[in-house]
């Protein structure tokens, strides 16, 4: 983009005379008019090569702005300088004569744009071809559909020669193929050094076509920047704005109605109002909004109106709502009793107070929730598990806060819980977080944070994150542009995609006692693609010198990398540090690694922790409480050594009990 300024607007002010609503009834004959400001202070420079999209609500002055730039309307104050020939295509269907053929209208319109007749006739064939109207070209324009009309109009525009093009609502009609053709044409114009300004209500069009966008609101330019950022901010403001939503909801948009219902439910931008909530929920459900139907069904269920609820669930299920489908199936498949039994069993486990029992029950309630109360219960138990440090509980709580399930939507809390899970190695949490930051649907987009979390996920072998990192590195989004690094990550991604087969190959080689070197090569390849298990396995081999040259440093390096993911790499690393830990310099690190691995559910870590507490190494000796707590956890999570020990304890207790009984009798 060059620095040459094509349009310079300075201190633009403009007001219109409008009929004052408050005075409408005063006089029937002469309606009082008042000055209403359209623009108060607009400053803008458009440079050569810009495709500038103009966004804003109806009536915010988008078209007026184009009219001022094209000097159809004069500003009240301020200056508008335009350097170059302007073609203003403010309405595509302007000036068509219905009785004339498409061909004649092409000539007429071109002449209205000031192109001499001879020149039009010269280019007529190419214009007709561009319009793609085929046999219809010689039929009267009044027989055309609106899409055909805009195709005709746009093909005329293609032939107009100017430096600056002003296009109002141009690409909103016409079929997909033509819309993309038109948007490509605008890009071509810019490539050949022209400047384009255009308004559209289609945010996708602006995102796809423009390099820059302005958002007009409250009589001024509210935002000016790269098109996708402005479009995101604008669409968020529409989604979050109570007034906008009310307007859309009254207009019959079911998604707006549902949104409005949630505003009333959560007291977002308006006072909580259960009646309004129910009203809008019903409205949205009437229009087959799946979420609304599902939510309303939940309410009907809790009111005991089962019949109605079932119908709603069915409707929502047919409209693709996964939850409703499950609820409908559960109730219809007569599995409710089985489910309740399972819930009872799992709930019984939670009395142990172990975090995984709490989590498992919360998880079940979340997945099988039929009513908001179920979700509430899931939420409560997950909170307890989270308090005891269980990583997966944080992951699920983050999702619940994000979706406003079981708790009011709260993005700050969602981020906090997801970060906590991500920091402790949950690759799912990493990728959810990264997506949240990246697509900016629920919150302000933040490429830096997105990149950070994708990077974390990528470093422990999450294929999608690896791809995303590569893409962001090559585009310079959220990080320095680095084509070399991007290349490496692309390689890792493509390598990750075949890790499953590598694993199979390795297993087969081992089973058939094949070439051990081949098997090792496969392991190395998997480890290079940041597959955490393979990195851990390889590290163990380095540590023990099995099949590889013994290298403690190599093992530690690999494990440090893999230990971004929770679980076993951390335990193995901690064990290596323990061996080296002569002066206690690794104390803190070991404890951190083991605790977080245990919270991630790694049984070996729990066992190791139990032993530390038993012997009072690093930590304070606690042979009764924590030793037993961790040992039992380890046993229940499948650690063999722990199982033996716990079995011995239990035998001893049983024997003592039996002895006591015999003594008593």
């Amino acid at each position: 983009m060059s620095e040459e300024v094509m349009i310079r607007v300075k201190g633009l002010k403009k007001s219109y005379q409008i009929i004052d609503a408050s005075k409408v009834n005063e006089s029937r004959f002469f309606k009082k008019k008042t000055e209403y400001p359209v623009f108060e202070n607009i400053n803008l420079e458009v440079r050569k090569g810009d495709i500038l999209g103009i966004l804003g609500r109806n009536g915010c002055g988008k078209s007026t702005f184009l009219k001022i730039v094209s000097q159809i309307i004069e500003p009240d104050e301020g200056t508008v300088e335009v350097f170059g020939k302007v073609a203003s295509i403010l309405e595509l269907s302007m000036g068509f004569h219905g009785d004339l053929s498409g061909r004649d209208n092409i000539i007429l319109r071109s002449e209205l744009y000031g192109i001499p007749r001879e020149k039009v006739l010269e280019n007529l064939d190419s214009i007709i071809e561009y319009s793609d109207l085929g046999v219809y070209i010689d039929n009267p324009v009044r027989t055309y559909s609106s899409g055909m009309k805009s195709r005709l109009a746009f093909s005329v525009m293609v032939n107009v020669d100017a430096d600056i093009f002003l296009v109002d609502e141009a690409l909103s009609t016409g079929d997909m193929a033509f819309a993309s053709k038109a948007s490509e044409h605008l890009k071509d114009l810019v490539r050949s050094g022209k400047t384009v300004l255009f308004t559209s209500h289609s945010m996708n069009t602006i995102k796809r076509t423009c390099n820059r966008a302005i958002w007009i609101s409250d009589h001024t330019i509210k935002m000016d920047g790269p098109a996708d950022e402005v479009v995101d901010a604008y669409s968020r403001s529409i989604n979050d704005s109570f007034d906008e939503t009310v307007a859309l909801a009254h207009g019959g948009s079911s998604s707006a109605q549902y949104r409005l219902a949630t505003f009333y439910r959560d007291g977002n931008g308006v006072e909580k109002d259960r009646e309004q909530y129910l009203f809008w929920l019903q409205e949205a459900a009437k229009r087959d909004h799946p979420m609304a139907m599902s939510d309303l069904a939940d309410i009907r269920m809790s009111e005991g109106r089962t019949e109605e609820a079932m119908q709603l669930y069915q409707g929502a299920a047919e409209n693709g709502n996964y939850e409703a489908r499950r609820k409908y199936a559960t109730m219809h498949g007569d599995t409710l009793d089985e489910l309740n039994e399972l819930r009872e069993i799992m709930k019984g486990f939670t009395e142990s107070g172990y975090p995984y029992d709490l989590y498992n029950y919360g998880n079940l309630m979340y997945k099988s929730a039929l009513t908001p109360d179920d979700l509430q219960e899931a939420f409560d138990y997950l909170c307890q598990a989270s308090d005891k440090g269980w990583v997966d509980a944080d992951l699920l709580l983050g999702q619940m806060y994000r979706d406003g399930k079981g708790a009011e939507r709260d993005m700050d809390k969602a981020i906090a819980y997801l970060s906590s899970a991500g920091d402790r190695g949950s690759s799912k949490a990493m990728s959810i977080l990264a997506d949240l930051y990246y697509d900016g649907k629920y919150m302000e987009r933040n490429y830096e944070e997105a990149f950070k979390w994708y990077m974390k996920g990528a470093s422990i072998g999450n294929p999608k994150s690896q791809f995303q990192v590569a893409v962001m590195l090559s585009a310079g989004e959220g990080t320095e542009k680095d084509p070399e690094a991007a290349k490496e990550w692309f390689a890792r991604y493509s390598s990750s995609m075949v890790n499953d087969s590598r694993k199979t190959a390795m297993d087969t080689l081992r089973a058939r006692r094949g070439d051990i070197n081949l098997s090792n090569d496969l392991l190395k390849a998997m480890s290079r693609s940041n597959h955490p298990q393979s990195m851990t396995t390889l590290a163990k081999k380095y540590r023990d010198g099995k099949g590889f040259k013994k290298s403690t440093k190599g093992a530690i390096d690999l494990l440090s990398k893999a230990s971004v993911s929770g679980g076993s790499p951390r335990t193995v690393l901690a064990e290596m540090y323990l061996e080296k830990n002569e002066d206690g310099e690794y104390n803190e690190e070991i404890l951190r690694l083991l605790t977080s691995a245990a919270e991630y559910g790694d049984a070996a870590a729990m066992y190791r922790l139990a032993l530390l507490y038993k012997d009072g190494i690093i930590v304070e000796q606690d042979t009764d409480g924590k030793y037993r707590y961790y040992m039992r956890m380890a046993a229940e999570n499948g650690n063999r050594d722990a199982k033996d020990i716990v079995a011995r304890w239990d035998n001893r207790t049983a024997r003592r009990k039996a002895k006591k009984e015999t003594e008593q009798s």
Partner: protein
Amino acid sequence: MNIFSRIIQSAKDVYDNRVILLAMTRRNTAGRYKSTYVGFIWHLLYPILMIAVLTITFTYIRPRPLEDFWIYLAAGMFPVTFISASLRGRAIVANANYITKMKFPREIVVISNVLTDFLGVVFAYVCIIIVILLSGQYVNWWGMLMLPVELILMLLFATGSSFLVSTITVFIKDVGYFMTIAMRLVIWITPTFFLASEAKGLLSLIVWYNPFTYFVEVFHDILYYGTFPHVEFLLISIALAVGMFLLGAAVFFRYEKKFPEVL
């Protein structure tokens, strides 16, 4: 800027944008009978049939004892309909689309509208002259020379009045409707169906205060009476044409900037 330099400026603008002027005029004329079977021929057929209807009416249904009364009717009829069309004031309102969406000299809209109607009048006179020649009527060639001059004067007058009335109509829509009715009256106070000399009393006073009369009488002189037109009529129509044009242009250029906002 005084009105004369503004008019010269405007003349330049219009000339620079003549492609648009011609396109709009062509759009109006070509579009008019486009979907009919005989198409363009309607431009000639329309005045001929008009004359035929009037002739039949006033020869057989309501006979007038005047010789060749149809020539009298035809000569006066077309200027009246032409000027009254320009006074109807719809030129700008009907083309609001262009005014609000296109950057071009806005006077083109008015001029092309007047031009379109003017072409109709020219067609009509061509037909009348052909019929006159074919029927062997007496023709005063010196008088006939004044016909184009008077047509141009009438064009000037119509343009001026269209500027004036259509500008007012932009701001006060009622004027347009009022003028439509008023023009019906004008037909009856202009000597088209009667001779100016027949008008008695109040009507005679009104007739000679009616600017249309002078244009119509010039045409009557040339075509019906076959003489050189009365010089005072000629002079008065020159004065009317120039005066109306200046007045209309002054009003138009004073307010045209407001059009895109008001329309």
